[in-house]
């Protein structure tokens, strides 16, 4: 039973990641729940009844997280920061020997082209056209792509750390498992894009619209969400970790309980949200 209660706590705290006090908090709560369970059993309840009553009396984990502060700002437990991520991605980018890397390719037309796995690290790609291209697993670390277009492109698993995609259109693009860390995305548009499993960490997402999107397992961490819109979006298993969501718009959005709890903790306004 101890294992079952431990599992319950593990999954309750899972969305909050490994905040510094997690081990202590879980250990203490587990001792409390186990004793409560034993008491209920001693009072004549069956295993299942006692377990149910114990977890029912647990309450809302977000209440605890309001008091147990995670690592704040853009610093997380392993000491990563925007600075560190940029440094790492620059280091990796510098190592590349690709023909596109560190190349000036302003206003290039690379639409409808197979560029799967291509390496555009450090490239200057302003106002370039990648519409309809296959960029699966492509690398755009620290690339400048301001004003470019990726309409209908496949960027599945692409690495876009440290890139600048301000005002870029990703309309109908496939960004499954794409990774944006320390990226500038201000004003980027994602109409009809696939964002399942995509990661947005330590990034600037101001004025970005995720309206009417379906987000599955998308991960937001330590990112700025000012005026970011999730209007009428459907969010399931979406993580918001260390994000200030107070000025994001969630009107008409649908989400699961865990996502709701995380957003509540991030001080999001959730008056017109439907929880499933």
């Amino acid at each position, binding site marked *: 039973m*101890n294992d079952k*209660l431990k599992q319950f706590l593990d999954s309750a705290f899972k969305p909050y990641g490994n905040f510094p006090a997690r081990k*202590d*908090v*879980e*250990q*203490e*709560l*587990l*001792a*409390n*729940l*186990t*004793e*409560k369970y*034993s*008491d209920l059993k001693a009072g004549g309840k069956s295993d299942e009844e006692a377990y149910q009553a114990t977890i029912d*009396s*647990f*309450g*809302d*984990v977000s*209440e*605890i997280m*309001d*008091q*147990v502060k995670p690592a704040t700002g853009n610093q997380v437990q392993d000491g990563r920061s925007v600075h560190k991520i940029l440094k790492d991605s620059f280091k990796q980018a510098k190592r590349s020997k690709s023909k596109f890397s560190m190349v000036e390719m302003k206003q290039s037309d690379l639409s409808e082209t197979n560029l799967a796995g291509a390496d555009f690290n450090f490239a200057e790609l302003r106002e370039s056209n990648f519409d309809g291209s296959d960029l699966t697993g492509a690398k755009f670390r620290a690339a400048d792509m301001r004003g470019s277009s990726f309409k209908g492109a496949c960027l599945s698993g692409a690495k876009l750390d440290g890139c600048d995609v301000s005002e870029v259109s990703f309309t109908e693009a496939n960004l499954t498992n794409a990774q944006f860390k320390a990226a500038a995305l201000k004003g980027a548009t994602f109409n009809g894009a696939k964002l399942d499993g995509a990661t947005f960490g330590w990034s600037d997402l101001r004025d970005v619209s995720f309206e009417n999107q379906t987000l599955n397992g998308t991960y937001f961490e330590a990112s700025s969400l000012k005026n970011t819109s999730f209007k009428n979006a459907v969010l399931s298993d979406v993580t918001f970790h260390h994000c200030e969501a107070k000025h994001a718009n969630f009107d008409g959005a649908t989400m699961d309980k865990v996502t709701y709890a995380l957003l509540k903790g991030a001080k999001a306004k959730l008056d017109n949200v439907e929880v499933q």
Partner: protein
Amino acid sequence: MIYTVVMIGKKLSSDLLRGHTDTIILNLLSDGDKYGYEITKLIHEKSDQLYLLKEATMYSSLKRLEHDGCITSYWGDKTQGGRRKYYSITPKGQELYATNMWNWTSAKEILDKLL
């Protein structure tokens, strides 16, 4: 219909009580150090089984009081489930308890006249 009224009544009273969680815990700790489940259990018993404080509510109250320096904590012996963490009240906590009690008695006096 009657059921609904009773439910609303229940929720209200629970909100009213929640606001006093910190004070209730400080009161229990002024009788001696206690660990989390002991506190929940005592509240349940002392309220004649009428008030069951949620674990999360109690825990967040403990963390808040600890952060404010009103209580301190230390690990106790290992039990079958995990380790118990004991809490004890500090002079600052005693002061807060006295202030909260004074506030409550005054408010109660006024409400008794008005309600």
